[in-house]
C-alpha cells in the first residue's frame, strides 16, 4: 500500500512540517536517498539506554534522529508538542530498567504511552514503533509454538502488565487509524558474541538484531507500507528451529534475518 493511500484510509492529513518531513509520495528508503531529499525525522526515546544508543547510531544513517529523554508527559507548556513537531515516526524504547515500585512503573509506562500517542497523532506523526516484551507470551505451555495472533497472557507483575497496557493503548490508536502502530515484542535483549549465546527458556534477541528489526519496521513503512496494516505485532527474537516463539512473521513481512542465534 502506498503511504498516501494508507494515510487517506487512516484519515491522517499531514500538514506543514510533518508533510515536509515525510517527503510527499512514497519512496524507497534505507540506502536509496538522494542527497537533496529531506529525510524523515524519527523521535527516539530512551536514547541513553544501551539499546537506545545503538538505535541512535544505526538509524542516523537514514533518518534525522531526534533523541528524547523520558519521561515524556504532556504539560501545560506544550513541551511534548514541541518535541514531536515535524516528526514522522516515533521509536519508543520503553527501557526495561525503569526504577521504582510496581505502581510507579505502571504509572510511568502507561501514562507516557497515552500522552505520547495522543500528541503524536495530533502532530501528524504517521508511525509509532513500540518496543514491547515477549515475556507477556511466556505464560503458555512451553510445548506450544506461540505466534503473534495468540492472546497476550501477562502476569500481574508490573513490568509485564505495563508492556501489555501500553500495547492495548497502541492498538486503540491504530484501530481508530490515528496513526500506524508496529509493536516489536523483543526477547530479552542481550549483547555479546554469537558463540556464547545458547538456548534459553526465556527467548532472547541480540541487541544488533533488535536494531535490525526496528530499522526494517521503519523501512517497511517509509517504502510504502505494503506489508503493514494499521496495527502490527511482530515477535523479535533469535531464530530457533522449533522454538517457542517463531519469528516467521517478522521474516516474511519485514525481511528480518537475525544474525545471532543459538549455537546449539
Amino acid at each position, binding site marked *: 500500500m502506498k503511504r498516501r493511500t494508507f494515510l487517506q484510509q487512516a484519515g491522517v492529513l499531514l500538514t506543514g512540517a510533518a508533510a515536509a518531513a515525510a517527503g510527499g509520495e512514497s519512496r524507497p528508503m534505507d540506502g536509496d536517498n538522494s542527497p537533496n531529499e529531506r529525510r524523515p525525522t524519527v523521535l527516539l526515546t530512551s536514547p541513553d539506554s544501551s539499546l537506545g544508543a545503538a538505535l541512535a547510531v544505526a538509524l542516523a544513517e537514514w533518518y534525522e534522529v531526534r533523541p528524547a529523554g523520558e519521561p515524556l*508527559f*504532556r504539560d501545560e507548556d506544550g513541551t511534548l508538542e514541541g518535541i514531536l513537531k515535524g516528526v514522522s515516526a516515533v521509536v519508543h524504547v520503553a527501557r526495561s530498567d525503569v526504577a521504582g*515500585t*510496581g*505502581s510507579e512503573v*505502571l*504509572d510511568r509506562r*502507561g*501514562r507516557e504511552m*497515552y*500522552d505520547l*500517542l*495522543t500528541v503524536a*497523532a495530533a502532530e501528524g506523526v504517521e508511525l509509532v514503533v513500540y518496543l514491547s516484551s515477549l515475556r507477556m507470551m511466556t505464560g503458555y505451555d512451553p510445548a506450544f509454538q506461540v505466534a503473534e495472533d495468540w492472546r497476550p*497472557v*501477562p*502476569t*500481574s507483575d*508490573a513490568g509485564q*502488565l505495563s508492556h*501489555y*497496557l501500553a500495547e*492495548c*493503548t497502541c492498538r*486503540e*490508536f491504530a*484501530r*481508530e487509524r*490515528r496513526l500506524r502502530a508496529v509493536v516489536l515484542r523483543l526477547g530479552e535483549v542481550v549483547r555479546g558474541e554469537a558463540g556464547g549465546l545458547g538456548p534459553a527458556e526465556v527467548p532472547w534477541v541480540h541487541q544488533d538484531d533488535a536494531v535490525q528489526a526496528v530499522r526494517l519496521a521503519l523501512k517497511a513503512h517509509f517504502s510504502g507500507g505494503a506489508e503493514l496494516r494499521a496495527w502490527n505485532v511482530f515477535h523479535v527474537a533469535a531464530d530457533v528451529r522449533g522454538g517457542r516463539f517463531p519469528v516467521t512473521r517478522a521474516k516474511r513481512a519485514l525481511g528480518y534475518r537475525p544474525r545471532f542465534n543459538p549455537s546449539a
Partner: protein
Amino acid sequence: MDILLIGATGFFGPHVVKELAPHHRLRITDVRPAPPEMREQFPDHQYFDLDVTSQEQVMEGADGVDAIVNLSVVRHHPVLAFQVNALGCYHIMKAAVEHGIRRMVNTGPHFTVAGPSYEHFDFRINPDVPPQPGTGLYPITKSLGHEVCRVFTEHHDVYVQDLLLYSLREEDELTAGAGGVPFVVTWADAAQAVRLALEIDLARLPSKCEVFFIFGDIPQQRFLNDKAKRILGFQPEGDVAVLWKRPGAAEG
C-alpha cells in the same frame, strides 16, 4: 459482610451506601470526607479518607474486609484519570491479593469495553465483546483498569465483577420524550446491581472476571442487559423507556 467502598461520596456512592447499609458493615471512604448528612443517616459504619492513587492507603484500608467496591472515577484530568481509573485498579487488586479478599466489584462506563467502534455501528452489543474503548482519556483509562483486574483474576484467587453504567437518573427525571443515550438506569437500580454483585455466590459466576451492562429496559436494542438479569438476578424497576415515548403515549 465487611465491605470497603472506595469513592463512596461521589454521585453514585450515597445510593450504594443506602442500598448496602442495612445488610452489611461498610467502610465508607473517599478522597473527600463523607458529608455530615451521610454520617448522620448511617452512623453505624466506618468512615475515613482514602486516596485510591496511594498503594499504601488502599492496602491499609482493605485489611480485614471481605469485599471491595470501587466507585472511584476521574474523567478529564490527564494525570489523575490514569492514576485513579487504571492505577487505582492495580492498587486494589494488589491489596485484594495481599489480604486474601476474593470479591471485587468495579464500576465504569459502557465504553470501557464498547467504545465508538461498536456503539456507532452495531446493535445488540453485549458486555462480553472484546474491549474496544477507543482513544478517549476516560474510556481508555477505565479500560486499562479493567484489563488490570482481568489479568489479576487469571493469576490469583480473586473474582472481579465489572458493572458498566453510563447515564444515571432519578425516577422523577424520567420525562417522556426526553431521549438520551440508550444506556440509562436509575440510581436505585444501579445500586441494586452493586448489592447483587456482592451477594451472588461466586461459584455461580461463569468466570473469575465478568462484565455486566447495567441499564433499565430500553427499546433500542443497541445494548443488551440480559446477562445482568440472567446471572445477577438484576430487576430494573425504573421505567426508563418512557424517555423515548411520544407525547401522549406515555400515559397509555
